[in-house]
């Protein structure tokens, strides 16, 4: 049964991709229907897979041994991410019915979206490291194709190429990790490795650990790779919601969580992970405070929240980070889709031209405020519970206290920029003449479940913890019932300190006129933040360097038969010479 479900969850989106593309762009309604139907079917298959997460099953498809068998293991970590990918994927597809109405080349769009969903599910369910790398690269490819979907817009194309090049560095790290594992143990299987990391000598283990850290940092847009995510906002907003908030960027966090038991013993690894998470959270929060493009603020907030999750893993709280991943996927997708409704209605992404939209778009304002409160970490909403769990994890295991203090400060900053964003868009006086209408039906259908989820997913804490602890023995996760977890959060002193800081953040925004003096003093910092602290320049240099060297290499492809045959001959001579020297 589990086998069929796994095949369905990966295969249905891929089949849908093929059929939607084959339906042709002359029948947009058919394409919309097919895409929604297949993504919903995949979502149901993934949800049906969840009960299997508790038993430790291993599903194997033998393919002849050269690369190991294709094994999938629907354990707690995998099925919950698969469910997120497919369910939020189907909501994003439903949203696209309204958002992409009237656009050209829908076949290409839906095909890539569905292809991505299938690949993401495959990535989190598989236990063969090489297969994971293949799925990883497929998600990078579809992400690039969808960022550059409007391929007549040079900014979109540049954003897509930049995302591709930077995440490819990460992919290289993952490949190195896979090859190190294979050359030392002869198999790509992850589970045996995690249960017994001593099969690798210490040097090889360190290489693999830091290679995987680089891969995760690049994929999840962490320090120092964080500049590709804001530029990826050129993609259509449902794509930003699905790929760059709820699923693909979680792949890096998933990788770290999956390999945590194996790497936690490597000296310096946990500190490095915590540092990466903390720096990303801090830098991104500062940059979000001065950004004026609505989607860029959300992008920076994604980087910041992912920093929280990465920090949590480094601190030893794997359950906390995955719980925050669940909350974050739901409320961030909600925020992005809400922003998409606003952008679609108003026609611009610049917040300085919005204002007072609350009157004209009441439904969107309601759901957006719910998501924003969750992001800021106010009680009752799911963001609050998970963020507090992370801060608590920062206190245990002998982690450095100064990092925790910085994370507390960042949560205050988060509250500040969140309220700034909500205020600039929905409240106050309209700053320009914009014609706005409330969200269409399909958009509402997509937004409502997410809002509901934001209000309620924290109730799943206990069952989620049980799922993880039963299916991941190597991670040593303690399973407490929901009520106990909630009580623990409410009574921890860290929680009250955090609430205080958030309150300070709110206050700062409310009293912003009074704080103008401080704001002027920090103008230098503001300019630095607007330039992404210099990272943008570095990344632009890397991208340009890559493109230039690729152009130069083109000169060796002369297209002349004579030279090509000559190269063949030279290669033959080299091979024969090596053989001759070896034999003789």
């Amino acid at each position, binding site marked *: 049964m589990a086998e069929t479900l796994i095949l369905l969850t990966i295969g249905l989106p891929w089949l849908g991709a093929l059929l939607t593309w084959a339906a042709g762009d002359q029948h947009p309604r058919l394409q919309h229907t097919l895409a929604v139907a297949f993504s919903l079917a995949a979502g149901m298959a993934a949800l049906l897979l969840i009960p299997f997460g508790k038993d430790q099953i291993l599903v194997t498809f033998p393919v002849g041994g050269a690369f190991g068998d294709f094994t999938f293991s629907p354990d707690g970590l995998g099925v919950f991410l698969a469910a997120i990918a497919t369910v939020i994927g189907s909501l994003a597809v439903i949203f696209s019915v309204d958002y992409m109405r009237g656009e050209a080349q829908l076949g290409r769009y839906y095909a890539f979206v569905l292809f991505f969903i299938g690949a993401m599910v495959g990535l989190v369910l598989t236990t063969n490291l090489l297969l994971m790398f293949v799925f990883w690269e497929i998600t990078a490819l579809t992400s690039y194709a969808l960022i550059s979907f409007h391929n007549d817009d040079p900014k979109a194309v540049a954003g897509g190429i930049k995302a591709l090049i930077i995440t490819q560095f990460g992919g290289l790290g993952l490949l190195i990790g896979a090859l190190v594992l294979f050359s030392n143990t002869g198999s790509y299987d992850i589970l045996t490795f995690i249960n017994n990391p001593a099969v690798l000598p210490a040097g090889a283990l360190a290489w693999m650990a830091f290679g995987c850290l680089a891969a995760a940092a690049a994929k999840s847009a962490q320090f120092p790779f964080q500049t590709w995510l804001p530029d990826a906002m050129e993609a259509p907003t449902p794509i930003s919601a699905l790929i760059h908030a709820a699923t693909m960027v979680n792949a890096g966090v998933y990788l770290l969580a999956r390999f945590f038991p194996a790497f936690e013993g490597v000296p310096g690894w946990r500190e490095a992970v915590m540092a990466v998470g903390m720096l990303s959270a801090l830098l991104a929060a500062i940059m979000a405070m001065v950004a004026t493009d609505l989607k860029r603020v959300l992008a920076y907030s994604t980087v910041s929240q992912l920093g929280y999750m990465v920090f949590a893993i480094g601190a030893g709280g794997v359950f906390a980070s995955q719980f925050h991943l669940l909350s974050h996927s739901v409320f961030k997708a909600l925020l992005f889709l809400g922003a998409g409704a606003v952008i679609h209605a108003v026609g611009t992404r610049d917040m300085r031209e919005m204002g007072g939209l609350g009157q004209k778009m009441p439904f969107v304002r309601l759901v957006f405020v719910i998501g924003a409160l969750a992001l800021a970490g106010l009680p009752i909403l799911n963001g609050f519970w998970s963020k507090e769990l992370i801060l608590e994890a920062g206190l245990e295991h002998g982690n450095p206290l100064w990092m925790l203090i910085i994370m507390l400060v960042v949560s205050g900053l988060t509250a500040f920029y969140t309220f700034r964003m909500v205020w600039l868009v929905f409240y106050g006086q309209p700053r320009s003449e914009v014609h706005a209408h409330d969200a269409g039906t399909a958009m509402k259908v997509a937004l409502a479940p997410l809002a509901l989820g934001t209000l309620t997913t924290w109730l799943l804490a206990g069952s989620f913890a049980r799922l993880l602890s039963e299916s991941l023995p190597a991670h040593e996760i303690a399973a407490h019932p929901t009520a106990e977890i909630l009580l623990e959060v409410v009574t921890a002193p860290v929680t009250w300190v955090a609430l205080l800081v958030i309150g300070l953040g709110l206050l700062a925004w409310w009293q912003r006129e009074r704080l103008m003096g401080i704001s002027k003093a920090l103008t230098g910092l503001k300019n630095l933040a607007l330039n992404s602290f210099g990272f943008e320049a570095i990344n632009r240099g890397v991208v340009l360097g890559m493109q230039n060297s690729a152009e130069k290499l083109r000169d060796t492809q*002369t*297209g*002349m*038969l*004579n030279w090509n*045959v*000559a190269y063949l*001959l030279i290669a033959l001579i080299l091979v024969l010479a090596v053989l001759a020297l070896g034999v003789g």
Partner: protein
Amino acid sequence: MTLSIPTIVTIIVLGLIGIGIYALLTTRHLIKVIVALQLLVKGAMLALVLAGYLTGQQDLGQSLAITVIIADTIVAVIGMALAVQVRRVIGTLDLRSLTSLRR
């Protein structure tokens, strides 16, 4: 000088292949390229028959060689049809001006 038969035939095979590759390295005319390919394949065929002769399995060698002849003939046929079309559309058969087929 008494060279054994296998040695002589090996020399023929290597000679044919070598002359074929030499032509591929230095010619500029598309039809000469097809001639060169024909020579290459004759060498390969002869090598197969030689292998059959040496191991006593001439029939197996011949069956494999028939496949090679047919494939090579079809390559020659389609190659020449392509050459005719290229001459018609582009006007020249010089390899140097055919490095890009975009017109």
